[in-house]
């Protein structure tokens, strides 16, 4: 028996004897996709955030790849920072993180990008009133740990893009 899933659209198949392997190790070792970062390994810091789309959540949820065994991935579509970054140029949220000098060492950045992008896509589909935006941002990235930046610029950058998504009636790409 094997476990089938996709990573950034590429089909993957692994023997179910590897079911207890962590997704993050699979990404790093098997696929050499190292944009997803390892911080704590126990699901707290969220540096390792990727997006998983799988029934009943076809739109995707953020998951911590350090604490996700491959056995949970049957039928899942996984998107990593490498998958979400356009071939040319950047996502608006990536550009905003750059223009706002949001991060410092940048080790947390891919995790913030993944969570923020998922949030923005959700926002485009289901806008929230502007006065609830700060709270919504806090829910989206508030559990992510950044040791360097103090979060101020991350929050500002995400709010700027979120406001433009709301203003445009929603296109986060």
């Amino acid at each position, binding site marked *: 028996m094997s476990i089938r899933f996709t990573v950034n659209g590429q089909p993957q198949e692994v023997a179910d004897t590897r079911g207890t*392997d962590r997704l993050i*190790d699979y990404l*790093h*070792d098997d696929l*050499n996709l*190292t*944009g*997803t*970062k*390892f*911080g*704590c*390994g*126990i699901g*707290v*810091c969220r*540096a390792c955030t990727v997006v998983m789309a799988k029934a009943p959540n076809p739109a995707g949820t953020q998951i911590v790849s350090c604490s996700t065994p491959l056995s949970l991935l049957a039928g899942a579509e996984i998107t*990593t*920072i*490498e998958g979400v*970054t356009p*071939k*040319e140029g*950047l996502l608006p949220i*990536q550009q905003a*993180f*750059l*223009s*706002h*000098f949001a*991060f*410092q*060492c*940048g*080790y*947390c*950045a*891919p995790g913030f*990008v993944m969570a923020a992008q998922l949030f923005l896509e959700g926002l485009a589909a289901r806008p929230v009133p502007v006065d609830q935006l*700060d709270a919504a941002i*806090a829910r989206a*990235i*508030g*559990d*992510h*740990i*950044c*040791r*360097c*930046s*103090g*979060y*101020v*610029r*991350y*929050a*500002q950058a995400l709010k700027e893009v979120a406001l433009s998504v709301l203003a445009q009636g929603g296109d986060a790409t």
Partner: protein
Amino acid sequence: MSASRTKPGLAGAITADGRLSRRSFIASASGLIAVTVLGLPRAASAHSTQPMTFPPGALGKPGTATQRIDGLAKVRGDKVFARDYAARDMPGWPAAQWHALYLYALTTDHAFLGLDLSGLTKAAQPRRIVYGDDMSKSLRSPKLVRRRDLAIDEKLQQAGQTGKQRQGFDRPTGQEFDLIVQPGATPNYLGQAVALLLFDSAAACRAAQREMRFRDSDFQAYAADVSRSENMGEIFPPQTTYVKYDLNGQQFSYASADPENYLAEVPGWQGRIAAEIAAHPDYITQPIACDMQATDPMFLEPEAGLVWYDAETAALNIVLGTQSPDGDVRDLAGMFGSADSPVKVEAINLTPCSPGGGFGGRDSSPFTLMLALAAPFAEGNPVRLALDRFEQFRTGLKRHGTIVKGALTAAPDMSLKLVEMNFAFDGGGRKNLSPYCAALAALCAGGAYQLPMANIFAEARHSQNISGGSQRGFGGPQAYFAIETALDDLAAGQGWDPVALRRANLATETSTTVAGGPIAQELRLAEMLDLAAAHPLWRDRAAIKAGFAARGISYGTGLALSLQAYGTSGDGMVAAVRMAPDGSFSVQSDAVDMGNGSATTLAVAIGEYLGTNASSIEMADYDLFGQTGLTTDDPEKQRWANPRWTAKSTGSSSACLTGLHQVHTVKETARAMFEGSILPAARRLWQLPDLVSSDVAWVGGLLVDIRGFMPPLSHRQLAQDIYASLGTDTPLPTGALGHAYFQSDWAEADFDTAGGRLRLRLDGLACYGAEGAAPKPIPRQNTIGPDALTTRYSRYVWAPCLNVIGLTVDRANGRVELQNVLSVLNAGRIHVPELVSGQSQGGIAMALGYALMEDMPEGMEGPANGLWNLNRYHLPRMADLPLATSYAPDLRAQELVVLKETPGDGRAGRGIAEAVMCSVAPAISNALFDAVGRRYASLPITPQKILQGLAS
């Protein structure tokens, strides 16, 4: 197989010859070792082979950054961190790699006997087990060089006199603990390795890690009898004593005394201080007693790296993210360069990666040694060592736990008379930089104030705890906490206004430090206090408090001031500024960017002189020093009269060295490039042989004749002329390589260049010619350099910072919430405003964690037990911090006021990365005092301590 590969250079690859010329050499017991610093392998990013490159369109106006130069690669998740690399990513390396796993000591009271791995499944069995007695002494217990310190000049003098070797000069043999405990011996400290396991697959290594986690004692055997580790409680030398007496026309201080007799004279002056106090019964004495637990830097990337010993080329190839490439490589040379080294190492090839955070914790980190140690045991295979977070907590350098005792004495007119402080730093296992951190705490003990008398002692001692080391603030956070809380207690006891008390005693340009060295720099502390006092967060504090009280919430306001010194007692820096044939520029620097933004700052620092920013930058290129033609050897003791001598090559990279030191070096080198190459090119192109720099200006990326006679010149035209000149009799340099030395003042000298004689605040200059050729040093003349004596001032430059904190306390559960922060910062010239405010924001968050949250007990209750991770060690998250950036009632904001630059700044910036967190913790404690009337003097001030205080 060879590790050689092309190094991304200015415009393409540097040839094999070019690479060879970039080598520097370190003398070791078994001969010279060639050291090469290599760029990151393979296309790191879609647009460039160099991860630190401004993408097209983002170069920005000269001197201005539109984004971080390293930002694009990081926001895309490109490979830039050491953890991102495996052997297969490294050109010329074998693709298969081994994996290293260290096991760590569980006690310092029983002898370690060995491992019993029979409980591991077959899939988790190591390929090889290495014990401490499987290796030579030089490997197990290498001689280390430590460079960042206060007292190095004296030690070097002593070494010179006694003819002793410099390496390891400040490390008595009793403290040269083994990196791996030998079976039969008692571990010296927790976090010390007891064995190295090597695996030939990642899966096996992970399986072993998983199976052994939280069950160490099932696999390690210790003797039943007690045999306590020796040397416990020993001092890590040097100790620091600052006794100052400056009253009644009599003066005594560390700086002014004869170094030979200083310590002998100290007791006499301490007696005079006591007599002076006794003669004034009206003086008020405020006791000082506070303590701080050790904390973890918790940089987000746990330490990781690759090493490969290539027998064919006798090369040690190493990939890692370090703050101290220079010192690390020297340590490796010491380790493998001795006669008993198990492998012959003739070359060290270092690939430095972007550290995923540092904060000092990657300065002289033992991780480098542990990684390298694995190389000779891996049967020719590359080895990867990647700590998980449990291991990082267990073994990574910590901020020192500290106990501070002392007193502050003032006259009834509020004038401070005496500060007495005793700092006991828990150095933990290895000496590392502990005594130097303690020494800086001693220097900071007088705070931002003029004090006629001081009696300060600081030391770090060896203990069983995890090793302490450099950490953002380097002893400053402990010292400022002590004095700034004592000032508030003194004020409260006397009914004085805390701002008035501070204002009455502020240090100024004419003051001296507690070490007796002159401040000699514009501080503007009074202006900062005035700004804070007039700010609504402070001015309206009673009304704000009443407003919260009306809602049943306890609110308090606290203020604290710090005057953090930055740099060391003498700093050497090196930078190259080079022009490509297309007219673009690149910068190379020995500095490391830990995230603080030095790469970006240095890339835009050339803008003023060269009319554009550097499009790319390489960091950690400390081996550039080898090409300056300079040396630190001075057999004839000529010092600056020896045209090839400098006092220091390069040192560890600290974020606080960017604003002044590194920027100066890059700018002065850019000026040399401008005056020594671009201006003469313009003279030729315009046929104006008398053209001087004041005749021209950069406008819109073009060099213009400001009198309007000549057509503007583009960078490309200038570059074409410069490159065309290379084959002629009058070649112009394509780049400049500068070395600077700062110690109270810059060393300066004349250099004869193609543009004429230049007076530069550099002590070394070399010129680049054709691509790939080594730069040619220009002999320096008429050098003026800092006097050896000024090193006794200890520090020369200061970054004042003031914080006002408004916070609420939940009396039911002890929870504290930061409501508002006002930071006032004197940063001198601001190079990149976003980076300065970013440092402040990050500093506030880190200081908040230090003050309130990061709670890590010592001994086997703490992270040494292998159970510690972010589920117990709590870091500030977004909700813990005010996020708005300007103050308004009913908002949670952190407002930063940066003083406007004055002529007194001399167009120079200040290193603020450490300063921004020094006054936050005491301001929090002072605010708590205001809120609930209790002094919390033991960090971290956890909810439990708050409740205990409330109940007392």
